[in-house]
């Protein structure tokens, strides 16, 4: 087997892991499986595309490639703006839809269903605005460089891995070392009790949406940069995201990232061993195996 699958798997896994952290956070704190999370990835990618395109109109120096990378300064700048915009989008959807349903205190499954409707609306809206034609941040081609061990990677891929690693460490530190992280864990344990103990539950929920959306946006931009931008980008990643969140154990940030890498590596291995056309089934196999053998996941607590 060609060892290059390790590199491909790591990169796919990093994107899945970043998305899965958002899924696992909303799942553990808001207590429902958010089918619209994939759309946050797609929206993040398209928002960055739109902003970076607008920046490119102002100044062509911004689109000139930086060093070895395929993109100019317009993309990192657009990424920062897109992260904020995606966060605001998630907050808006929560305010209009999930927040109202939560306030009513109905069954969990109503929230799941609402997220299903929201995902359809958000995805088709992207298709309406940007059409279903694939888009790219840059048309520049990149040559993969040897990085030892018989592996090759493009500078863009290495940068993406680095960004993903930094984001995960930042989130992990936030969850374990800061006040808001402690509040988040308290709310995920028992939201009513946390509220009585003086935790601002609504603020925690806002932070969860923003952090989840920000990570989704980063993952979406990575996917857009390394593969391509399509309205179905998030929808196609949704099953891997769920598989990784459940494999890692609902609520565990390191678990989601590690499980994301496992899913990504398994997909890449399956492409080599079985064939690329079966790639999408890998997450389903993993999902079924976890539900059969260890429904609480690798790092999750028993329900």
């Amino acid at each position, binding site marked *: 087997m060609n060892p290059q699958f390790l590199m491909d798997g790591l990169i796919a896994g990093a994107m899945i892991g970043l998305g899965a952290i958002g899924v696992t956070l909303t799942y553990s704190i808001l*207590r*429902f*499986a958010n*089918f619209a999370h994939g759309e946050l990835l797609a929206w993040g990618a398209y928002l960055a595309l739109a902003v970076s395109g607008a920046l490119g109109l102002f100044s062509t120096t911004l689109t000139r490639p930086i060093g070895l990378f395929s993109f100019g300064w317009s993309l990192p700048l657009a990424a920062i703006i897109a992260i904020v915009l995606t966060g605001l989008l998630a907050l808006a959807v929560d305010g209009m*839809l999930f927040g*109202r*349903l939560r306030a*009513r*205190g*109905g*069954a*969990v*499954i*109503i929230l*799941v*269903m*609402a997220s*299903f*409707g*929201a*995902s*359809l*609306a*958000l995805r*088709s*809206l992207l*298709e*309406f605005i940007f*059409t*279903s034609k694939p888009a790219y941040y840059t048309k520049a081609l990149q040559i993969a460089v040897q990085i030892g061990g018989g592996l090759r990677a493009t500078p863009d891929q290495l940068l993406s891995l680095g960004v993903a690693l930094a984001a995960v460490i930042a989130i992990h530190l936030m969850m374990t070392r800061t006040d808001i992280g402690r509040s988040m864990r308290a709310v995920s344990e028992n939201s009513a009790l946390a509220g009585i103990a003086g935790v601002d539950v609504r603020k925690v929920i806002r932070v969860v949406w923003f952090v989840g959306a920000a990570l989704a946006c980063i993952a979406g931009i990575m996917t857009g940069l390394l593969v391509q931008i399509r309205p179905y980008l998030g*929808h196609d990643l*949704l*099953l891997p995201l*769920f*598989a990784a969140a*459940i494999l890692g154990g609902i609520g565990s940030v390191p678990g989601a990232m590690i499980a994301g890498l496992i899913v990504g590596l398994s997909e890449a291995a399956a492409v080599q061993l079985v064939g690329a*056309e*079966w790639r*999408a*089934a890998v*997450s*389903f196999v993993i*999902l*079924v195996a976890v*539900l*059969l053998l260890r*429904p609480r996941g690798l790092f999750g607590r028993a*329900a």
Partner: protein
Amino acid sequence: MSLDLIAYAAFFLTMALTYAIMCLGLNVQWGQTGLFNVGIAAFVAIGAYVSALLTTPDAADRVGGFDLPIAVGWIGGALVAGLAAWLVGALTIRLRSDYLAIATFGVAVTVQLCVLNLQPLTGGAFGIGFIPRPFGDLAGDPLAFGLSNLALMTAVVLALYLALQHLAKSPWGRVLRAIREDETAAQALGKRPIRFRLQAFTIGGAIMGLAGAAQGQFIGFIAPDNYLPILTFQVWAMLIVGGSGNNRGAILGAVLVWGLWALSAAAVSAFVLPEQQARAAALQIVMIGVGLCLILLVRPRGILGASNALASLTRKRTPKSKE
């Protein structure tokens, strides 16, 4: 000219009734049991492909073609789809309620993939053609062909409706209702919620398989494109418009939504420029997604138990927040 119109109306109604069957299946799962299935397309596809495999004449380029009677195809499609539903349910119903939703989503993705890639079995992207159609020997006369198919499908829907009404009133249906209203109380009375839920999910899946089989046989051609996630969404819209929990509503909703869908699609292709048609279709889906969310917001409890006396009683009390 008017005969053509009648033949077209018969075709339209027959298609709508195949959707009504899916809708009835979903009503058993969601309306009566509260199980959220986002993989309807998968169960419909399983039914359609199994039925096509059983009834087509022997084909050189793929496995099977067993040339069996159409009725065998229908029953086979329903049984295999029911088996698939049972497997998914057995795996997830004892876990958290949304794991079932995630698993059915996975089934939809995987079935779509299998249908595309298992070329020797399913014909791959080109699908399976020349599926024998009921009353195929009447095909020379569109009117007689259309009307006899419409009569057949009406009979199927009517039989299914009566059976499901009977089932809902039976002790089994009462237990389902009891579990949905108050799981703990039902458990205290010695009923096992997991078992009843699994049974309901299996029956619903089998009905969707039957719908797929009937639809495939009626059109005479199936391809993976017929079973995309949008199908799942259409059936959901039908059930919610018709009023979930209500079998008559399920049938009515199917005819209404299918009619609206067909009309708006015709309007889009007639009035929108060809290069803008994909965008108009996307906007159509946006509106349905928003519509679903609006119904959830505006009629919160009405969705779970509109036709239920007990539900309207509990609504007056403060809603308890359940995990």
